[in-house]
């Protein structure tokens, strides 16, 4: 199992731990791209006491873990990684080089207004505008794969505030103190309560398919 660890500086924290709960695939894609960019750039972080980290864990599974105090979440990392000359490179589908350029082009394509257009042509325009140079022919195939990939979102949360609110309402088990959140859209998302706290290593272990499985007991 390969694990790459990156400390997150306070200015980048908002990118990986958005104030609002994650609700859409676009947010997931943005986080994936920002994390990839962060890892490729591997910025030097001065001495800081922050516990916030990105862990890229590659084994049979391949996942990104974002951890801060009492909150961890993970998404699939769909790119292939290889190292050369002390640097990391990402590839997708074996032939697309996921570099700073492609990340930037993709981000501008999915974050512009016309991406949300109610007509396919508006959407196409945004892709086209970003890919009209001879250098970015890969943009569309890359973006298509990103939109289709299964992101495998799961979150571990120790949320005293939410728990207390539920407790006051007399329904503490609707919001257990420590829990997993699976999925992120309203109709799909649900919680699984935990009786004990999880460390980030427990969380990684849960998702590692090469270690023993966990059981839900009751």
């Amino acid at each position, binding site marked *: 199992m390969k694990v790459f660890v990156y400390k997150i500086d306070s*200015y980048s924290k908002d990118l990986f731990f958005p104030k609002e709960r994650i609700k859409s695939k676009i947010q997931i894609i943005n986080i994936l791209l920002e994390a990839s960019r962060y890892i*490729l*750039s591997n910025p*030097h972080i001065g001495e800081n006491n922050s516990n916030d980290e990105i862990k890229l864990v590659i084994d049979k599974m391949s996942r990104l873990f974002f951890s801060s105090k009492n909150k961890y979440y993970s998404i699939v990392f769909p790119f292939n990684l290889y190292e050369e000359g002390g640097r990391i490179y990402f590839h997708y589908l074996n032939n697309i080089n996921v570099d700073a350029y492609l990340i930037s082009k993709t981000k501008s394509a999915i*974050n512009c207004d016309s991406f949300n257009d109610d007509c396919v*042509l508006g959407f196409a*325009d945004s892709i086209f505008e970003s890919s009209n140079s*001879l250098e970015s022919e890969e943009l569309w195939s890359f973006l298509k794969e990103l939109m289709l990939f299964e992101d495998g979102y799961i979150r571990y949360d120790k949320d005293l505030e939410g728990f207390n609110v539920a407790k006051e309402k007399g329904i503490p088990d609707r919001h257990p103190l420590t829990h997993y959140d699976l999925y992120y859209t309203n109709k799909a998302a649900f919680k699984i309560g935990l009786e004990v706290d999880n460390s980030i290593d427990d969380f990684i272990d849960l998702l590692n398919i090469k270690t023993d499985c966990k059981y839900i007991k009751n």
Partner: protein
Amino acid sequence: MDNSLFYSHIEENDVNKDWIRKIKNYAEQNTEQQVYLISAPLGEKYSYSYEENVIVILSPGYRILFLDLIDNAPLFNEYCEDFIEDLSYISDKYSYKEYIGRPREWKSEIINRITPNNNLTIEQIFRENNLDDDNQRVGELLISLIVGSINDITKVGVKEPETLLDKVKQNIILFDGDQTRFIYQKFTNKTVSIQGLSGTGKTELLLHKLKELYVLEEEPKIFFTCHNIALANTLRSRIPSFFNFMRVEKQIEWNSKLWVNRAWGSGKDSNSGLYSYIASFYNFPFLGYDFSTNYNKIFTLALEYINGIDDEDFEFAFDYILIDERQDFPKVFFDLCDKITRKKIYIAGDIFQDIFENTLETELEVDVILNRCYRTDPRTLMFAHSIGLGLFEKEKLNWFEDLYWKAIGYNVNRIGNNQVELSREPIRRFEGLMLEDFESTVIENSTKIIDVIKILKSIKERHKTVMPEDIAIIILDRNKAIYEYIDSLCYSIRSQLEWNVNRAIETKSKTKNAVYITNTNNVKGLEFPFVICITAGIKNTYRYRNILYTMLTRSFIQSYLLVQNEIGLSALISGLKVINDENLIRTSEPSEEEKIAIKSTLVRIQNKKNISYKEFLNEIFNELEIDNRFRSKLEKAIIQTDIEEFDKDKTVKFIVANKEFYS
């Protein structure tokens, strides 16, 4: 010599014509002094019965002078009191009153009533009516109200600012003579165009014009457009606050009365562009952007289609169209606008956006030429022009006729031996700011991130009130490697300065509290106190030089040029030194043969501009019979080189030399 700072809005009559002539003569002798002659506040609906016997002289630094030409004290005093009352109302309307106080507080100091006799000279009048330092700012603020050049009083303030950055930011902006003419003079032609360097205030003037049209007409349909999406977005977001600020009470009815968007637009949303709107208005098929469509094609087809509509069925799409950055459009676009617009078209263009544009094309009839650049320090502008045109190099990239130099604001002085000195008039924004010790342009021979951070830190150190959004970092090169550089730069700025960054390549808009980082695509129409341009090396291609020129002029305090490669830098550094020391460009004039050679190179490159670069390459591939399978590889290779786009000779040479390696 004409004084572009002089403007008279008084109708001449027998009583006033001698005095107007006298003052005009004075202004022609004193070309650095701004003088307006009026008889009622501009841009408002005031008129006075005694008006034709009065000249009001406005000039920054002097009292507001009311000249009674026929010596009728009771009527003159009545006129003065009415004028002051109205001025007081305007001052209240734009919230100046809280800052400058009531008329009784400024009237006696700032306003002087004069009944001149024939012996009195204009020099004497000005000499005796100098304002002391305490009253100068109030005087200027009152002038700004009278000529309708409204400043944001909450930002400008009445107190003299302390730091250099604040002084430049809080400078009271007054329209100069040419600008005032564009706004208030009635033009008879349907298309009214202004032209000037970037930073001469064209966009601002269009906004003022827009406001006037929007307010004046009952139900106007106005489209305000430009080529660039980022600029269109900025304009659209500026309008509500601008209208609000100009106390426009009428609601903005977006996309039914007023459109502000780019010229093309997208297929689905007809309001997303001028072309997409008229495609839906006249019901013809919209063509999306691709390699084979361009402005020429879509506008030509649109015009053909609309010309084919029967007269009785034809309707105008708009009452007015306002166009910014005219140089981005082909001629047929203006023909199309003329066809679909009921009343008037106002066009602002930058004769110099492309400094290699064929001058004949841009010397089209223009109604107002603005040659004073208010954005950029004249020294930065001179340097940017020099580097753009290659003035410090042996082989110049372009050279102009004297008339054209004049049109872009230069005085040409030949000092013999082919040597020429080019200089610019100082501008109000930088008057008395003691900028002599302050380099307006800095060249550094490094693009290392650590050095960029150093510059940012020194700016922060020197200008205590600087905000992250006051700084733009522009990467001039076009290759994939810059994206990696930008990433590292962004993280370093965050961690070392604790400033946020705005990756404008992705956001395509300005945001508060973040350093603006971009390639050369999202800069048009924007300005920043500080600009840092970063490049691997100074290239000799026309496109590159033009971009470099444009980017350097985006600053209004200081521009930095960071170059990794030192080739050619020493000539630039010594040329810049002359600019900084002597306030002029010293260069040599090309010989006649050299001028002809320059022209023919320019023509060769420009003639190819009507087709897209992809088409241009395809033509060459066809001629050279390059197999389809290898074209895209070769294309990729060509764009990695420094070969000028559309330079056929070099492109052919490259393909011939390299084709065997790409097949």
